[in-house]
C-alpha cells in the first residue's frame, strides 16, 4: 500500500501563493505533476523521451547545461563542474520516477539544493528576466528526453 501521507499534489502546493502576479501565469502547455514518495511516476504530459536527443540537451550549455555542475560519462568536456554528484551509473541507483523528480524540481528532496528545477512551476521563480518570465527551464519533452538519456547510465 502506498503511504498517502507522502503525497503532495501539485495544485495544493501552489494554490496558497495568492501574491502571484498575473503576468506570470502558468503557460497554457504546462502539465501538472504529482510527487509521490519522493518520485514522479508519470512522464510529464504523458510524453516519452528520446535518449539521443537527451544526451544533446545534457551537454548543451544553453539547454540542460548539466556538465556545468555534474561529472558525466561524456568525452571531451573541458569546462566541467563538480558541485553536484557525479552521474555515472545513476540509473542503477535510482528508479526513473526518482530521477524525474530530481530533474523536475529537486527541492522537494532538498529545499536548500542549488540545482535548478528544470520543470519547476514558473510562478515560483523569483525575479526572472523578461525573456524567461512564465517559462520553464526545459520543455516537458526535453525533460523526458534527458530522463531517457539518464536511464542509459547503468
Amino acid at each position, binding site marked *: 500500500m502506498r503511504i498517502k501521507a507522502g503525497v503532495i499534489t501539485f495544485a495544493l502546493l501552489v494554490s496558497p501563493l495568492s501574491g502571484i502576479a498575473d503576468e506570470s501565469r502558468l503557460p497554457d502547455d504546462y502539465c501538472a505533476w504529482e510527487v509521490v514518495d519522493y518520485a514522479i511516476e508519470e512522464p510529464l504530459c504523458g510524453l516519452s523521451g528520446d535518449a539521443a536527443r537527451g544526451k544533446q540537451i545534457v551537454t548543451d550549455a544553453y539547454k540542460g547545461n548539466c556538465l556545468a555542475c555534474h561529472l558525466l560519462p561524456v568525452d571531451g568536456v573541458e569546462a566541467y563542474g563538480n558541485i553536484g554528484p557525479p552521474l555515472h551509473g545513476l540509473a542503477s541507483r535510482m528508479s526513473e520516477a526518482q530521477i524525474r523528480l530530481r530533474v523536475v524540481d529537486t527541492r522537494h528532496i532538498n529545499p536548500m539544493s542549488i540545482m535548478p528545477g528544470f520543470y519547476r512551476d514558473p510562478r515560483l521563480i523569483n*525575479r526572472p528576466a523578461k525573456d524567461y518570465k512564465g517559462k520553464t527551464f526545459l520543455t516537458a519533452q526535453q525533460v523526458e528526453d534527458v530522463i531517457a538519456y539518464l536511464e542509459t547510465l547503468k
Partner: protein
Amino acid sequence: MILFRHLLILLCGSLLIVSSGASLALEAKSGYEYIKPATRAMQDDDFENPGMLAVERGLELFNNKQAGARQSCAECHGEDGIEMDKKSIARYPVVDESNSAIMTLQQTIGECRKRTGSQALPANHADLIAMETFVRNLAIGEVVDVQTDGAAVALLEQGEAIFKTRYGLIDMSCAHCHGMYTGLMIRGQKISQGQANGFPAYRLDIGEMTNLEQRIQQCLTSMRAEPFAADSEEIKLLGLYLMSRSNGLKIETPAVRY
C-alpha cells in the same frame, strides 16, 4: 558528586562545540586564491594587466579639467591623487549615519564632478569606472575596512538577506555558489568566495573593466534574472554586504578575474 561530574562533562562538551565552531568559520580569501596561475601572473604584472589601462585613463581624467568644469580633481586632491587618504578609500562604500544612505565610491566621484561643474555621467559610464579604478588603485595593498556598526548594522542585514535570496530561472542565491560550494568547479572555473576587494576588476570573460555593482548585475543576468538597476537600493545593499565580507583583505584593484 555524580551530578557535578555530569555538569563537568556537559561543560567540556559545550566548550568543544564552541571551539570547533570557531575553527570552521569562513576565513576570507581573495578571489586571487581561486584564479588560474596565468591569471595571477597577468594581474601581478602592471604591463600585462589590462586593468592598468583604466587606471591610466582615470589618472588622465583626474589630473585634467573635464568639459565644463571649473577645476580638476587634482586641484583639491593633489597631482596624481597624492593627497588622497588611502584609509578613507578603503572604507568604501560608506554609510551616512544621519540618514542611513549608502554612498559608493562612484557616487562620491559623481558628487565631486557635480560640485566642480563637470558634465554629469550616467551610472557605470566607462569614464566613471576609470576614475573609480584609479582612485581605488591608489589604496592598493590597503586593508578593506567597511563600517559594520551603527547605521551599517541594519543595512548589512538587508544586504545579507539579498545574498541569501534565490533569483532568476536558474534560481540560485549568491550564498549557494559563494558560500556552500567555494573551491569546487562550475563550468571549468573554480568558485570563489565572491569577495569584493579586487573590484573594479578586469574580467577576462567579457574583456571589460567591471565594478562591483556591474558584477552583481552580470551575476544576476547569468542566473537569467532581471538585474537590479545600476543605482538601485538593492545593488547598494548587496554591494555593501559583499565589501564588508572582504574586511581584512587587501585591495587589489585592478584585479584580473574570469
